[in-house]
């Protein structure tokens, strides 16, 4: 395949959607002790109390976000730590690490990314009144899983 094939084209040709889903499932199972499967996004709209973001640069450019409610973020942190988080900062830290591991796990599964794709350190925003405007304006794909019956939405937004 030509190296200048657009990411959007590659994401469709190589069917990255199940790769993203597997990356999410593995992180939840290994780090949170929870088996998850994708559920309907239409039936489980995203809650954006917390959004963690990791940027991708190089051979694979874009951004991966993980968003969920504040309550779910606390539950995720508790599952990771084995005890309740000590602060909102620790909850954000935990969600950022989940996003970081999903991003790394996803790119490690793609032959085109490998060492030619770099990850940023995670950024986490919280609060009720914000929008995330990504400059990565290409194709996107999402997967939604339920953690303690609440949606966790993971989105890959590719650069154009």
């Amino acid at each position: 395949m030509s190296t200048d094939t657009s990411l959007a084209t590659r994401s469709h040709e190589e069917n990255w959607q199940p790769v993203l889903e597997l990356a999410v499932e593995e992180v939840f199972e290994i780090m949170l002790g929870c088996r998850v499967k994708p559920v309907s996004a239409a039936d489980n709209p995203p809650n954006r109390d917390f959004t963690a973001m990791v940027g991708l640069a190089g051979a694979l450019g874009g951004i991966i976000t993980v968003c969920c409610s504040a309550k779910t973020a606390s539950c995720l942190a508790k599952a990771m730590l084995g005890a309740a988080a000590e602060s909102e900062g620790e909850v954000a830290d935990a969600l950022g690490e989940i996003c970081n591991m999903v991003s790394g796990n996803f790119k490690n599964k793609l032959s085109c990314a490998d060492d030619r794709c770099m990850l940023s350190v995670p950024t986490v925003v919280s609060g009720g009144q914000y929008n995330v405007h990504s400059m990565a304006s290409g194709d996107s794909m999402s997967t939604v899983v339920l953690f303690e019956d609440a949606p966790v939405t993971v989105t890959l937004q590719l650069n154009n």
Partner: protein
Amino acid sequence: MDKIRALIVDDSSVMRKIVERSLRQAGIELEKVVEASNGAEALAALRDNPVDLILCDINMPVMDGLEFVRQSSTVENAKGVPIVMITTEGSESHVVQALTAGARGYIRKPFTPEQVKEHVLPVLGKKP
């Protein structure tokens, strides 16, 4: 096994706690745990704290894990101390860079306590 002193380097405090817990779950008794949130902090911490094992992330602000491994050889307290990378970076290139710089082991996130045991015990001279 004798109790060991470990330095855990990761920009995530949550991940530092998880790594420490995984060491304990691997049956490694910890006399002391020193934490640092990036490579520069880790170099500074090493100057005052002799340790027996270093576990280090790669992607960190200020100084990344690969640079820390390269520079750690200049710190007296780090000489001969095994370094195991624990990172989301899974490419062969990163593994080679880490091992060439002086790391003795490489664990990819997400990881299980069993993987920690499998990679850490040998560098401590123990059977996993």
